[in-house]
């Protein structure tokens, strides 16, 4: 048996060429096979790829979907995002735990089923949702949760849980997911017809420099949220010295409340891959990598078939469109549950078979990225835009949107509204229009761009979705007036704490301290000085953190403070004496239980 683990592991390593940089694929394959990556397996991997056990453990322990300790044959990952909480996560979790006879985080004694939770899996419009291994189940209720457990007990086959499939390509035989697209508004860039190969043909008739010029003229900015001009990024990579260049597609949308890339991957895979191929032609790259978040693994067989189809059609591979020397191919790199890998340098680390630690910048990826080569990392939506721009022209694209933000934006809208889903809207639309479109009643707070961006109150509804005003990567979450903003902020702090890579001090330690402070105020033990401290600590973390995660994580706290309304009910001046944060009754409870008498001071 022991030899079995080593042998099988060695075979897996061999399949990936014993390549150190393919450690992600190797670890995922070993996890699939054994339900964990044990010390023994890590020793073997280290031996095969000429690394060290601790290096392999460093990677394995970083990703939530990989584990050193054995997990159940089936792992149920209930999505614990705030929208799922709003839609009944707690009751579903309790019902499933009770049915399984275990608590959250445990595995049934027979080793069959593990129940755990995971941050946003990109299903906020059909919450509560869960991943059962890689199968998505949506619209859970306590009763459906119980039934799901009973069914699994019987067959231990997650795919059998899919009794009905969603719309569009969710019905595709290689997808067969109960996920729904919920496309509520179809715009001209992403949801108009797209003929595979059409944009690529136009591109290769131009020089690479002209392709870059076209993208620059369209004033396309990165759709992941940061809004960096795409053409400029390409130009930097094209001009950077180096033999080899890479085109990376960031399909790791992990921002809580984002799910638009999931729909684009499902419905616009050709348009996306064509955009990558065009990018490859423009910057002089023959290799593209789609970094697909582990949560979307159910799309992997389908996406792989699209890659293969495009190879057959001559849109990928060698001598593309019959042009000698024009090579470009795509591999899909699966992630394994790490929000931080949506940060472009962390994504590169992960593709290189490392922990998802962001890298020091400079150098920036267009100068030195994947394996030290010039690399462009573009969002799924950005690359889809590229294909359309090549087809319709930069003027057509630039004519849409607002003055400094051209084109359309695909939004994922969820939360307290009647019509959650995907909306392709022109840039410049107001927050109020979004509320009307989604039929959100009594909206009190909106997150524009998920927790990493901006929290706005009802007084900012005239703000416009664009890079100069309300910038967004696409996650819009609506909260009604009954929701407590500080509790929202605390929920997201928990998320960021879990997802921090732990590399730098301000983020690793500061976020926990900030969360404790927020919790103290929610608990009713706050003083006015706590609000000042919260603001100072937030600004400190934002200013000194190494990457975008720490620089954004305190935003919900600052948003809640800015919208105001916190001093009444939350914080009060205290009389001298014991600090409100110190609770004697809680501090002596252990001793009281131990000795069986009550404190005379409580």
């Amino acid at each position, binding site marked *: 048996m022991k030899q079995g683990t080593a042998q099988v592991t060695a075979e897996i390593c061999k399949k990936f060429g014993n390549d150190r940089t393919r450690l992600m694929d190797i670890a995922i394959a070993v996890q699939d096979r054994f339900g964990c990556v044990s010390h023994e397996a890590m020793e073997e991997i280290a031996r095969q790829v000429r690394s060290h056990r601790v290096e392999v453990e460093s990677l394995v322990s970083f990703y939530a979907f990989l584990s050193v300790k054995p997990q159940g044959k089936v792992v149920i990952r209930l999505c614990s995002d705030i929208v799922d909480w709003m839609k009944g996560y707690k009751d579903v979790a309790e019902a499933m735990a009770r049915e399984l006879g275990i608590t959250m985080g445990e595995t049934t004694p027979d080793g069959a089923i593990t129940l755990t939770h995971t941050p946003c899996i990109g299903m906020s419009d059909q919450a509560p949702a869960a991943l059962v291994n890689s199968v998505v189940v949506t619209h859970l209720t306590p009763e459906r949760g119980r039934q799901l457990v009973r069914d699994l007990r019987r067959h231990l086959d997650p795919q059998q849980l899919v009794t009905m499939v969603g719309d569009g390509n969710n019905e595709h035989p290689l997808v067969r997911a109960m996920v729904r697209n919920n496309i509520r508004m179809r715009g001209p860039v992403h949801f108009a017809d797209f003929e595979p190969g059409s944009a690529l043909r136009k591109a290769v008739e131009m020089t690479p420099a002209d392709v870059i010029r076209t993208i620059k003229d369209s004033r396309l900015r990165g759709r992941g949220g940061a809004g960096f001009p795409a053409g400029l990024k390409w130009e930097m990579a094209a001009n950077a010295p180096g033999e080899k260049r890479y085109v990376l597609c960031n399909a790791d949308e992990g921002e809580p409340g984002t799910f638009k890339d999931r729909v684009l991957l499902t419905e616009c895979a050709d348009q996306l891959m064509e955009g990558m191929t065009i990018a490859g032609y423009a910057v002089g790259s023959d290799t593209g990598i789609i970094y697909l978040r582990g949560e979307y693994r159910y799309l992997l067989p389908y996406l792989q078939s699209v890659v293969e189809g495009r190879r057959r059609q001559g849109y990928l591979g060698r001598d593309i469109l019959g042009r000698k020397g024009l090579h470009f191919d795509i591999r899909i790199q699966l992630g394994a549950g790490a929000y931080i890998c949506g940060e472009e340098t962390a994504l590169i680390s992960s593709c290189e078979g490392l922990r998802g630690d962001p890298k020091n910048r400079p150098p920036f990826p267009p100068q030195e990225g994947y394996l030290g080569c010039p690399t462009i990392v573009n969002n799924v939506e950005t690359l889809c835009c590229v294909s359309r721009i090549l087809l319709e022209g930069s003027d057509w694209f630039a004519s849409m949107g607002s003055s400094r933000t051209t084109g359309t934006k695909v939004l994922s809208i969820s939360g307290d509204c009647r019509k959650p889903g995907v909306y392709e809207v022109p840039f410049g639309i107001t927050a109020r229009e979004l509320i009307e479109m989604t039929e959100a009643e009594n909206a009190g707070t909106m997150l524009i761009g998920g927790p990493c961006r901006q929290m706005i109150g009802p007084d900012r509804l005239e703000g416009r979705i664009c890079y100069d005003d309300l910038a967004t990567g696409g996650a819009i979450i609506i909260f009604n007036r009954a929701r407590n903003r500080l509790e929202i902020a605390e929920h997201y702090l928990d998320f960021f704490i879990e997802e921090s890579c732990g590399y730098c001090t301000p983020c690793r330690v500061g976020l926990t301290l900030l969360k404790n402070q927020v919790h103290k105020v929610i608990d009713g033990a706050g003083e006015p000085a706590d609000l000042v401290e919260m603001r100072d600590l937030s600004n400190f973390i934002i200013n000194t953190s190494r990457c975008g995660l720490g620089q954004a994580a305190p935003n919900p706290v600052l948003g809640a403070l800015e919208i105001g309304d916190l001093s009444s009910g939350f914080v009060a001046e205290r009389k*001298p004496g014991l600090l409100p944060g110190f609770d004697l009754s809680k501090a002596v409870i252990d001793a009281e239980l*131990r000795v069986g008498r009550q*404190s005379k001071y409580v």
Partner: protein
Amino acid sequence: MGSKPRIATVSLAGCFGCHMSVLDIDERILTLAELVEFDRSPINDYKEFQDRCAVGIVEGGCCNEENVEVLEQFRKHCDVLISLGDCAINGGIPAMRNNIPLRECLEEAYLKSPGVYNPLNVIPNDKEIPLLLNRVYPCHEVVKIDLFIPGCPPPADAIWAHLVSLLSGKPVEPDYKNLKYD
């Protein structure tokens, strides 16, 4: 009695080493005795506050319910409250139990550890023994503390400098050599 400012001191979960360091100011203690009146303190063994105090000095962390009560009293009766020494500031050696559940601590101390003679196999539970807190708290996590003098124990010169500046109403000058955590 009269108009001299009053000082109160107490040792909670500490070893009295910080009080020893107060005595270590040597002959300056005579000057101190002229400047101030000692209120509640182990130095005169008063157990209750006699009057409002200008300065309260607390040694040791807060480890049981009685410590909490004492800290509350000190906060109420003193204008300026000082955490003296590392235990008051970060819990010190008693705080090494802080990541071990209380139950395990008690069992280790009274039942399991080598050399324990406890034929009845009981953990003491006399109602005169104050209940332990779930962990040792730094004093400033229980009541507001105005000044901190770290050290294990704090250097006598640091204590003297703080008292002199307090009594003369001047700010405490930074002093690299007398700021120590050991």
